[in-house]
């Protein structure tokens, strides 16, 4: 897609990974208004992680809700400072937080934003910093966990110990987890957010582990959901606790007493059929990459209310 020159100028200062994320955020944005708001947040000098988190928050909102969440209208409380009001005009992410919206950083910031917007931000931040003590809105924001639009850059979330352990299990050694998952869950929150508008919520289960769900039961429930038209997201890997890829079970087919599941691995774009008996016996998955051996986790739908 083509973007305005000023957006492209900022984008040029981002890392290749940041540029890729931005492209995906533009593709996933629900409307042109959302694209515009994300671009404005980017131009205001926010980091990749902040822009990503902001885009995630907007995605589940209608255009009217987005507009309301990111603009200070005529009924703005009088205790907003002039500087805040002016900044909110040009920075929708700042306005979003000023109005009580919360963001969870979900990207490791691997590159600073472009120099020009950062300079502009510094100029705008000075007066706000002086007013901090007297500004109740800002004071309340400062006490909140996570990061806010005023921060100079990425501030890691405080992760509880179980959550930190869960993240450590799936993150490359030595690397900071980019998108902290809730404790014991790897992708349930992402799926729920993605399909909220379609009326589907999810319950992530670990397969064949103590406290998890036996794979035969999980496949039974998956087959039932697939018959109702709901694809089943999974995580595959080479051993329990070593997830490698996401996978989508697209459909099921039964012939006599045999049932097969069609599996789609989006990274390699392989689409294969796997016999249920092979899945139950924990035989190798039929992908070219033989390290993708097992189904480790599965997300089962809770309800459908489209």
């Amino acid at each position, binding site marked *: 897609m083509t973007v305005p020159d000023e957006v492209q100028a900022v984008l040029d200062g981002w890392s290749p990974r940041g540029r890729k994320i931005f492209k*995906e955020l533009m593709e*996933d*944005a629900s409307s042109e208004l959302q694209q515009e708001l994300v671009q404005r947040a980017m131009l205001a000098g926010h980091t990749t992680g902040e822009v990503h988190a902001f885009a995630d928050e907007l995605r589940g909102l209608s255009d009217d809700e987005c507009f309301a969440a990111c603009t200070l209208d005529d009924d703005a409380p009088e205790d907003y400072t002039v500087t805040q009001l002016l900044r909110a005009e040009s920075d929708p992410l700042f306005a979003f937080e000023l109005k009580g919206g919360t963001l969870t950083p979900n990207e*490791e910031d691997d590159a600073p934003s472009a120099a020009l917007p950062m300079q502009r931000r510094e100029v705008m931040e000075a007066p706000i910093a002086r007013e901090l003590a007297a500004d109740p809105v800002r004071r309340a924001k400062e006490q909140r966990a996570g990061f806010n639009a005023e921060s100079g850059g990425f501030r890691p979330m405080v992760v509880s110990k179980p959550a930190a352990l869960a993240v450590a299990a799936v993150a490359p050694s030595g690397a900071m987890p980019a*998108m902290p998952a809730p404790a014991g869950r790897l992708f349930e929150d992402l799926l729920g957010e*993605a399909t909220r508008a379609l009326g589907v919520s999810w319950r992530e289960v670990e397969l064949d582990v103590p406290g998890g769900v036996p794979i035969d039961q999980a496949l039974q429930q998956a087959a039932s959901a697939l018959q109702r*038209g709901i694809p089943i*997201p999974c995580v595959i890997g080479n051993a329990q606790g070593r997830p490698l890829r996401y996978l989508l079970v697209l459909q099921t087919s039964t012939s006599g007493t045999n049932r097969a599941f069609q599996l789609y691995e989006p990274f390699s774009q392989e689409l294969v059929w796997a016999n249920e008996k092979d899945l139950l016996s924990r035989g190798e998955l039929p992908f070219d990459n033989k390290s993708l051996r097992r189904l480790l986790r599965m997300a089962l739908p809770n309800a459908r209310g489209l």
Partner: protein
Amino acid sequence: MAAARPQASAPFVNRELNGEQLLDELSELRNAQIAQKHLEDLARALHELEGRRVAEAVIQLKQLASNRFAGQPAIASLLVRWSTRLKSEVDVGLLVGHLERLALVSALLGAFRRGADRLPKGGRA
């Protein structure tokens, strides 16, 4: 004598309808830069088709293509293409299911992309 149960027509009994064909359609829509919001709108709009007779469903699909999705030619083209394949009432329900599944798969693949960094090497290991 009981009336013969209506059968689904050939395009709807194709085993790859919700597999390879669905992914091809999704790729086509993605190349046309169709936003997820439009697919969700499509899924919601198609609910009105359920239980309709074939002739009514065809008219409604074409109306959706020429009105609501006129600004998204890739979706409009998909709707018109499918409208010509409807032959029985069973097909209508299967088409609604297919296009709803398309919206769901698209949403889930988007979630995978956003969650890639939760996996070692960004899910490329």
